[in-house]
């Protein structure tokens, strides 16, 4: 009888140079769609400005917005791919199709990257925006210089400074992604990101400073002493924080994280620190969300 292990090679990767051709084509297609959208927007704007067609017949251009001055004066504008900066004493409200609205605070710099049935995508280079979105997951996205915030059905505040981006979720949940790590930030939690580095592990906005600092040390250097502090201080509100740490620490410490998390929210049957099976992690996450 042949060695059954040798049969496994049949399941291996098959070199396929056309894969990259297709991948590049897909990336180009997405860029082309964005360029065409921009071109169409520019053309439409020219048409509107020339007064050649009525507003009724003009194609949708960007997203409608209102600039509100401190005096109360309201000015209608359109958020397009061009950067738009709010003044030091004015805010802006952007209507994102029929899925929600975004309020941009004073002193912010924002633009529209994409809008359509598949996705609405803004870019925030500086300042703060508050988003409230009622839509299927991943339909609304905000890029910053340090991360990408992907709406999963929620309301949140996103602030960008030179040091990094800070995401605070007030309802629902938001994914924050950068450098190969994606964290899920639930309501009442906060995560930060800086360019080229993975986002921080989400922490409750009500967490004590010492707890927050300990989580940051675990993120930065896998500091075991800090991890012990996090595990001993964690309450049920910190269960999402511990869940994220399961994927960060190695098996010997993972068992301790799992035990601490298990005291807050029972693990799914069959979870083990050694296996840390992705399905089990998903099931545990569902329990954590339900427990909140």
């Amino acid at each position, binding site marked *: 009888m042949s*060695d059954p*292990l040798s049969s496994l090679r049949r*399941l291996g990767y098959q070199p396929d140079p056309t894969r*990259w051709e297709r991948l590049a084509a897909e*990336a180009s297609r997405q860029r082309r769609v964005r360029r065409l959208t921009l071109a169409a927007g520019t053309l439409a704007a020219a048409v509107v400005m020339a007064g050649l067609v009525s507003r009724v017949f003009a194609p949708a251009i960007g997203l409608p917005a209102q600039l509100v001055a401190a005096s109360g004066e309201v000015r209608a504008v359109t958020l397009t791919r061009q950067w738009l900066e709010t003044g030091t004493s004015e805010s802006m409200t952007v209507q994102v199709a029929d899925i929600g609205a975004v309020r941009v605070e004073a002193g912010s710099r924002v633009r529209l990257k994409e809008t359509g049935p598949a996705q609405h995508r803004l870019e925030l280079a500086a300042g703060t925006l508050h988003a409230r979105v009622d839509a299927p997951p991943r339909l609304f996205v905000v890029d910053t210089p340090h991360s990408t915030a992907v709406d999963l059905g929620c309301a949140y505040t996103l602030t960008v400074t030179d040091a990094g981006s800070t995401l605070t979720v007030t309802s629902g949940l938001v994914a924050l992604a950068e450098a190969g790590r994606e964290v899920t930030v639930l309501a009442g939690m906060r995560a930060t990101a800086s360019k080229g580095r993975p986002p921080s592990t989400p922490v409750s906005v009500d967490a004590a400073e010492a707890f927050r600092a300990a989580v940051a040390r675990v993120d930065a250097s896998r500091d075991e002493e800090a991890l012990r502090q996090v595990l001993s201080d964690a309450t049920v509100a910190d269960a999402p924080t511990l869940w994220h740490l399961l994927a960060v620490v190695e098996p010997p410490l993972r068992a301790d994280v799992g035990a601490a998390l298990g005291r807050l929210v029972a693990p799914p049957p069959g979870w083990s620190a050694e*296996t840390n099976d*992705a399905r089990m992690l998903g099931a545990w996450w569902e329990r954590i969300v339900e427990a909140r």
Partner: protein
Amino acid sequence: MHALFTTVWMAASPSEVLVRARKGDRSAFARLFERYAPMVHGILVANAPSSEVDDLMQDVFLAALERLSSLDTDAVGPWLAAIARNRVVDTHRRRARLVAVRDVPESGAPDPERVEALQVLAIIRTMPEAYRETLVLKLVEGLSGKEIAEQTGLTPDSVRVNLHRGLRQLRERLGLSPEGADDV
């Protein structure tokens, strides 16, 4: 030769390829990604149903392509591995109904050798994470221990230990003699 590979890269070092890929050179990223494709494929095979592996491959490398220019590290392999693992976790997390990672029977006449391979893979998928990925990278993708360490960021000692113990455990489960476990 295919259009993406028309640029001559035979003399370029891996770091040069990375620099050119970051600048948007298509043949450079094709060469860069092709190098890591078996490793990414192996991680996906170890953790996701076979029917989803192709789509996840596309997702992983599209995400990598979008972010390559801003990548602040030369450790491309561990970065891609992290994206792949995150995609798998993401898939499981967001799936409305959580289902076990198992393969749907294929239509048509079964290929006995492929059936046998899928059965062995199913056993590997029940093994501890540390063994699961290294075993798949070795036995399915044909990577050497040195290549696994270089591409995933694990230490060579960890890879050697995981392979040795994992292979011994796998052979026990398959009712095979343990001798082959030393061939790592």
